[in-house]
C-alpha cells in the first residue's frame, strides 16, 4: 500500500516561494549583496524561482548559480547506482557575497554538508544561508535552515516528494507513505 497526501498544492507553492523571497530580502536588508545557489536538481529550479521573485521585488538582477555535489558525497561508494555527474555552474564571483543555498528537502543534512564543502572550494563568501522548501527533520549533522518553506514532521519510512512544473509538470509537495507490504 502506498498512500500519497498533498502537503502543498500549486497555489500554495507559489505563495511559499514568495514568502521565502520576502524573508531573504528582509534578512539581508535588500538584495545587493546576495547570490542564490541551488543544489541540483530541484534546488536549482527553486533557486531560479526565488531569484526571479527577488529581482522583480527589488528591481535588481540577482546572480544565480547551481551546484552539483556528486563529487562531495560521503555515500558515493555505497550507492547502488553511480549518480550522473553534472556541471557546477556558478558564473559569478561568490567572494564576499551573502550566498543563499537552496534545496528542496532538508533531511539528514548530509547534502548540505557536501554543498558547504563544494561551495567553499569555489571561493570565500561573506556568509552562507540555507533556504529549504521542506524541513522534514531527522538530522544526522548539526545543520539548521535559515529559511523554511514548511516544517513537516515525518517518520523515517515516509518520503517527501517535491515536484516542479519545469521538470515534473506541476508544482506540488506530497507526503508518501509506504506500507509494510510495499
Amino acid at each position, binding site marked *: 500500500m502506498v498512500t500519497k497526501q498533498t502537503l502543498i498544492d500549486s497555489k500554495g507553492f507559489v505563495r511559499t516561494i514568495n514568502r521565502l523571497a520576502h524573508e531573504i530580502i528582509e534578512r539581508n536588508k535588500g538584495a545587493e549583496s546576495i547570490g542564490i545557489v541551488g543544489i541540483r536538481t530541484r534546488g536549482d529550479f527553486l533557486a531560479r524561482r526565488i531569484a526571479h521573485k527577488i529581482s522583480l521585488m527589488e528591481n535588481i538582477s540577482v546572480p544565480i548559480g547551481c551546484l552539483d555535489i556528486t563529487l562531495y558525497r560521503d555515500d558515493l561508494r555505497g550507492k547502488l547506482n553511480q549518480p550522473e*555527474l553534472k556541471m557546477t555552474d556558478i558564473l559569478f564571483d561568490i567572494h564576499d557575497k551573502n550566498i543563499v543555498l537552496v534545496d528542496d528537502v532538508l533531511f539528514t543534512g548530509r547534502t548540505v554538508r557536501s554543498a558547504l564543502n563544494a561551495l567553499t572550494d*569555489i571561493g570565500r563568501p561573506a556568509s552562507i544561508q540555507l533556504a529549504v522548501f521542506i524541513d522534514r527533520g531527522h538530522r544526522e549533522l548539526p545543520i539548521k535552515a535559515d529559511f523554511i518553506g514548511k516544517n513537516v514532521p515525518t517518520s523515517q519510512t515516509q518520503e517527501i516528494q517535491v515536484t516542479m512544473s519545469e521538470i515534473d509538470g506541476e508544482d506540488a509537495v506530497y507526503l508518501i507513505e509506504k506500507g509494510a507490504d510495499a
Partner: protein
Amino acid sequence: MGLSSRHLLGLQDVPKEDIQLILDTAISFKEIINRPIKKVPTLQGKTIVNLFFENSTRTRISFELAQRRLSADVVNFAASSSSVSKGETLKDTARNIEAMKIDMVVMRHNASGSAQFLTKIINANVINAGDGQHEHPTQGLLDMYSLREKFGTLEGLRVCIIGDILHSRVARSNIYGLKTMGAKVSVCGPATLIPREIEKMGVDVYHHIDDILPHVDAVNVLRIQLEREAGGYFPSLREFHRYFGVTKERLDKVGRPITILHPGPINRDVELSADVADGPNSLILEQVQNGVAIRMSILYLLGTQN
C-alpha cells in the same frame, strides 16, 4: 549509469555509451581544473599506484595530477629505480604491490597486452597508460574530447592520422574510438610504417599527404618514435619531413583551416613544422589540459563503481 567494465585496457570493443559517458563526465572535470581550488574529495581513501615500466613525462604527470585533484593517495613507481632492475617479473611486482592494499593501478609497459595480463593476476582496477604497440586509450579519449570540444560532434568528422602508424598505440586507440563514435578515419604515411591489412580496421590508406589533406577536418600527427627504431623504416628524417611533414605551406594550399593534434613530444620540423605546432589551428596545448580532465573522468567512473 556507469561504465560497463572495471578496467580501461583499450578502446577496441568499448561501447559507444561508455565513450560518451567518459567524454561527458570530463566536461565537469575541466570546469574543476580551471577553478582556483582545483581539488575535490571524491576519491579520498583510495590508493592508486602508477606503475611506469617505460619513460613518460606528460602521461605520468597528467595521471598524477588527476589523481591528486580527486584526493586519492598516489604512489609512483619507476622501473629504472626498482626491483625490476634486479630481475623481478611483472607478475611478482604487481602481486607484491597489491598485497599492500591498493585500489587501482595505472600501468605503462613496453609489452603489448601487459595491461590485460595484469587484470588476471590482481583485483585492483587497471588503467592502461600505454602497452607496447597495442593501445593508449586515455590518449585516444583526450584526442576525441579535444576534437568534440572544437567541432561539437565526432559523427562524420574527417580525421587523418599521419606518420608512424606501425609503432603507434595512439593511432590504434584513436582509430577504434573515432570509428565507434562515427568519425571517418584515414591514415597516411610511408608504406613501411603502415601496418598490413589496416584497411580491415575500417580506415582509408594514403601514401601522399597532399592527396588527403583537402578532404579532412583535422589531422593527428604522430611522433616518429626514434626509440623504437622507426628510423630504419625510411631513408632519413629530412626525407620524411619532405614527403610527410605537416608544414604551413602544405596546409595553406588547402585554403581552409585544418585542426592539428599531436600527442607529444614533438620532433619539431620532422613530422610537424614548428610554425604549425605553434599556430592558431593547433590544439596541442589544449590536448594536454584535456588530458587531465579525461583522466579524472576515468578515475572517477572506475573508482566509484560498485
